[in-house]
């Protein structure tokens, strides 16, 4: 649904434009960690994360709870887990579209994916998978609180997750406190995997930590959501 996707793209694209505008003279393409590209290539993964990590699915579910449509689903002779999995499948499609659009904007600003077209496909799929996995958090809040405002507010959790990472500069340039926080923040590894595809190409040692984080996040959060709906009102 375009009306659900377009507003969620405003913030990541705004940040991308502002960051590039303000920082690209400080970090010209001769900067070592940019591997010959402009700063936009370094910032693109942050925008991708921003575009896919939303509370949209949780909000859709809490709204259904609010208007009573959720009861209609619960009383239908279907597996309760399918209500969650169906929603997440729809979210995956939305995330694919959002990641693709942000990538296109990045390319228009001059970024290039060093890992080529297969790398570009992988980074879109990884971004979308992360967004879908992360969507479970808001779904969980929706099922547990059944409160629209709380579910909406759960989006705020992503700010520390996204900004306590090497988002502006590489990990080794961070102060020691920030570096420690970034190390224990799982989003760091997703960000670095995607960034590596853009700046360095196919570097397996950079890729697998990000993929592992996405899988673990998905298994844990989706698992908790399925359990929450199976035990809803039990």
């Amino acid at each position, binding site marked *: 649904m375009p009306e659900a996707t377009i507003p969620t793209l405003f913030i990541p694209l705004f940040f991308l434009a502002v960051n590039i505008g303000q920082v690209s003279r400080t970090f010209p393409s001769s900067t070592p960690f940019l591997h010959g590209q402009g700063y936009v290539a370094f910032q693109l993964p942050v925008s991708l994360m921003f575009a896919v990590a939303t509370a949209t699915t949780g909000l859709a579910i809490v709204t*259904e709870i609010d*208007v*009573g*449509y*959720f*009861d*209609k*689903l*619960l*009383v*239908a*002779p*279907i597996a309760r887990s399918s209500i969650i999995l169906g929603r997440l499948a729809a979210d995956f499609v939305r995330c694919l579209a959002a990641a693709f659009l942000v990538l296109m904007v990045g390319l228009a600003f001059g970024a290039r994916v060093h890992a080529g077209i297969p790398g570009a496909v992988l980074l879109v799929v990884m971004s979308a998978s992360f967004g879908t996995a992360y969507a479970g958090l808001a779904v969980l809040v929706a099922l547990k609180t059944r409160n629209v405002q709380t579910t909406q507010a759960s989006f705020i959790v992503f700010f520390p997750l996204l900004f306590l990472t090497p988002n502006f500069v590489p990990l080794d340039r961070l102060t020691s406190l920030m570096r420690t926080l970034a190390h224990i923040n799982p989003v760091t590894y997703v960000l670095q995997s995607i960034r590596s595809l853009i700046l360095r190409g196919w570097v397996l040692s950079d890729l697998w930590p990000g993929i592992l984080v996405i899988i673990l996040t998905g298994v844990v959060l989706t698992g908790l959501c399925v359990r929450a709906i199976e035990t809803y*009102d*039990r």
Partner: protein
Amino acid sequence: MSTSTTSVAIEARGLTRTFKGGVEAVRGIDLTINSGEVFGFLGPNGAGKTTTVRMLCTLLPLSGGAATVAGVDVVGKAAEVRRRIGVALQEIGLDPIQTGRELLELQCGLYGLRGGEVVERAKALLELVGLTDAADRRTKTYSGGMKRRLDLASALVHSPTVLFLDEPTTGLDPASRLTIWDEVRRINGDGTTVFLTTQYLEEADQLCDRIAIIDDGKIVASGTPEALKSELGHDVVSLTLDGGGADAVQSALAQLPGLERIASERDKLALYVEDGAGSIAEIVRGSDLRLASDPRRCLPARDRTAA
């Protein structure tokens, strides 16, 4: 309103629900509802009507007791119960951006209908509830009555054997209420057992074969509307006598047909009778009363009270 078969559609024994914090919403309800009946659950807000419906629909677990719906245990075989029941809850469950037709087609899919069946069934149901003209409009443009009718249709996609309606006419204008009543009668005419909750005595009286009155989580009375009315309700004819003579009138009326009791207070008599309007002529004749010219003093005040 037919009771063609005598098999049991809903049976509950000692149904109990205690919410967190110890609130006892339903406190030991027994119900036996026969197939083909329209059964009314009548009670004020907070009496436990919705909680009972949600337990029978498998949406809430029981804190105690047991229940079968369409012959199936609601606890042990919830999935099987869900296949056999249709549910229209108090909160109308409609997605505002779907059209009526889309909503019904999705609902058909949830109940396992496929392909051409889905299109046909949605079309037939839209016709049944008179929404064919509005079928392709988004539900947010519907009036309250239209939403109720669509919700009702969505509960019928799989031709359930038992239909639960939780306050189907609350908040509707009188015309929409009559339309819903017609729908309920038509659905029941096709053999569907209907369990409905209502706050309205009139609705229960008009629609239901049998009624249970619930208050504070317990059934306080049950029976046919007629039986309940004669059990719980009297007509009261009150007489104001000029110049006394109450004792004489009282003994003259002792044999009045349908008289339950007479209460007297100074120059006033209250006659509790089954049928007030039908008894007035007999009262006047039997007591040899002459009606006074002041209408307030000769017209019998008709009142219906709970015993």
